[in-house]
Structure formats: structure tokens, C-alpha cells
């Protein structure tokens, strides 16, 4: 049984070919094989959303996805959004509106928010709060996160 199997996927626009065990979770592949440690493991039970990445443009929890399930598909992580010199509009909005305290949940929050904003260019605070059902923050009380996502969505729409 087991051994490794070949996978080929796009990660942040780069074609990756690798050998993985079938049980390797996508989050482990990203962090441990590719060194992309911006994607965090929080609860490890698909509830907290710290591990959210995009799979073919839709937000998913990478702690509950096998790497083999992403074979042939496109993955985007927080590292694929912007750079310290040129932040993605959603990252800039979290900075501007101070949408974080410790920052642990932030990569997942931003990846989730970017997926949402792509379909809700001018969201209400209620729509933002409903969407963030799957992202838990233990510091902020969410107020500034909601303000960040509203502003980020509008900035993305303008971009």
C-alpha cells in the first residue's frame, strides 16, 4: 500500500510537479514541500479558515483537501496575491483598516475575502459577516475585518 504518486498542479501561477503520499493534505504540501508558510493551520478540523486557499478561483479549506485532489488544478495562496512592495487591494485594505491583531487568521481571511469580493463588488456589512462564517478570529471581534473587506471589495472593483 501507499508509497507516493505523481501530481502536477499550478501554484501561484507556477507549474509544480511532485511526488506525494495520497494522504498528504494540501496545506502540508504547500507549507512543508513548497515552503509557502503563509497558509496557516489553525484548528485542523475545517472550522477556523486559517488555511483557506483558492482552488480554480474558489475558496476552500486546504486542511481538508488531499493534494491528489488538486492534481491538474490551479491553487492560489496568500503568497500569490501581492508583494510587500505592491500589496493586493484586499491586503492594503486590511492594513489601512487594521483588520487584524495577532494576524494568525489573516491569510485565510484575505483569501476568503478575495473570493467573496470577486462576486460582491459593493457588499453590505451583513453580506460580509455571513460570508465570513467559515473564518474565525479570536482577537478582533470582527469589526475592523468587516470594514476591511467592504473597503477591499470596492478597491478591487475599481482596479
Amino acid at each position, binding site marked *: *500500500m*501507499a508509497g507516493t*504518486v505523481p501530481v502536477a498542479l499550478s501554484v501561484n501561477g507556477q507549474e509544480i510537479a511532485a511526488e506525494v*503520499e*495520497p*494522504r498528504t*493534505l494540501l496545506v502540508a504540501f504547500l507549507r512543508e514541500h513548497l515552503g509557502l508558510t503563509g497558509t496557516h493551520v489553525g484548528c*485542523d*478540523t*475545517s*472550522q477556523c*479558515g486559517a488555511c*483557506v486557499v483558492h*482552488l480554480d478561483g*474558489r*475558496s*476552500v*479549506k486546504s486542511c*481538508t*483537501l*488531499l493534494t*491528489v*485532489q488538486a*492534481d491538474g488544478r490551479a491553487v492560489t495562496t496568500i503568497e500569490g496575491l501581492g508583494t510587500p512592495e505592491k500589496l493586493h487591494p484586499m491586503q492594503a485594505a486590511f492594513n489601512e483598516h487594521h483588520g487584524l491583531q495577532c494576524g494568525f487568521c489573516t491569510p485565510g481571511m484575505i483569501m*476568503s475575502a478575495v*473570493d*467573496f469580493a470577486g462576486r460582491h463588488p459593493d457588499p453590505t456589512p451583513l453580506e460580509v459577516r455571513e*460570508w465570513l*462564517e*467559515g*473564518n474565525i478570529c479570536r482577537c478582533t471581534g470582527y469589526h475592523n475585518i468587516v470594514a476591511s473587506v467592504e473597503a477591499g471589495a470596492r478597491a478591487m472593483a475599481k482596479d
Partner: protein
Amino acid sequence: MYAFDYHKPRTLAEAAELLSTHPEARLLAGGMTLLPTLKQRLASPSDLIDLAGMPDLAGIEVTGSEVRIGAMTTHATVAHSAEIIAKLPALAALAESIGDPQVRHRGTIGGSISNADPAADYPAAIVGLGATVITDRREIAADDFFTAMFETALQPGEIVRQVRFPIPQAAGYAKFPNPASRYAVVGAFVARTANGVRVAITGAGPSVFRLADMEAALSASFTPAAIGGIAVPADDLNTDPHASAGYRAHLIGVMTARAITFALEH
């Protein structure tokens, strides 16, 4: 997670062949229940057979009388389908109420009903609408499909292909969600059809069940007031840290009334 071998068949026949040659294999749909189960080492299948390699298993088809949903169709796809929102808005609303957005991007109707979690939402719609489950072998009527807690009429190796929901005159779903998981503490699906009214309850007992006395009362008068005097016995209902059996019995009346209101307004 224990090690396993992984397969991604391209046809149902290939999947069935893999299941017969690997008796300890499990089917993988969206993985929203199976992968957490494996991570907790509560199961150790020798093989996973991923159903994502068959495009025919996903998709929505709406005919004059039915909504047909492929087994691998995600909750998000059902929730956002313009055709389902138009023809069966209660089903779209139910799908939108499952878990969170990321779970809805992965979780599937076939996976949900095959797992048959007693607090899952879809079983209420299957039984409430009198749907038909199409497998690779046969058609199974809703009332025969869910047999016990986490148990269905599916035989070993049998694969769900599609669910066919008859389009009702009106329908509604309401649930009291667990605040953390969004599973139903109690969920009620109500449908008014040419053959009378059906009421199906999830989350309250070991498996989804119908309420004959409410169905009779609502067939006479499809209003929330019609069920006001009907007491639900708590005897066979679940008690857990989230709610007592008595509280669940109370919630059944409240959620059913809200489902009727949704049906009347949509």
C-alpha cells in the same frame, strides 16, 4: 491519517470494479466528512476512490416536473443555480445554509445523503419532497432511503448517481442551526404537492422522519396556525449537549411553522 491508495476512475463501471476488488475501499466525494474522519483516525480504508473524475456525475437539469441534481454537484452550485432558485427556492436556501462557504464549495449532495448524518440538511429535502435517488443499479424512493443513524438502503459498492426532486406547488425549509457547525439541531422541510403535504424533520431523531399528523392538518389548511395545537412527543428524540429531547420537540413545531411561512412567501 493512516496511509491509503488513491484512485480516480473515469467511469462508473471502473469505480464499481475498484470497489469490488478492494473491499476495504471508501468512495470520496467532497470529503467534508470523510477527510476529517480519516484525520481523526476513526476510519482506515485501504483505498480511496475519488468520484471527481467523472464530469457526468455533476450538474443540474430542470425539467417541467423535476429538478435533477448529479451526485457530485456541490452545495454552492445548488444554492446559486438560477433555475433551482426559480423552481425550487427552498432547496437553494437549504443548500446555502449548509456549513460555511468553503464547505459549500466542496461538499456534495451525493456525499451528504450517502453519509446520512442525522443532523444533515439534505435528508430533510429528500424525504420532504419525496425525491428519488438514482444509483448505478436502481432507483430508490426517498421513504426507503434513510434507514437508521448513518445508515441508508445503499448496498455495499452501490454508487449514488443523481437525485430527482419533483417540483412541488410550494415548499420551505427552516432550521435551528448549531451555532458552531451549522448542522441542524432541528430542521423542518415542508412541501405542498398535488398529492398532499409532506413534512420531514432532520436533526431531532436518529434519522430523518415524517410527521403524519402535521401532514394531515396541513393538507386541510396550509398555514402555520394549522399545526399550532399539535404536540410532538419527545420520547424518541435526541438529547445531547446542544439540546434536550423536550427542547427539540418544541423546536419541531417552531421550525415547521417557519418552513410553512417560507413556502407561502416564495
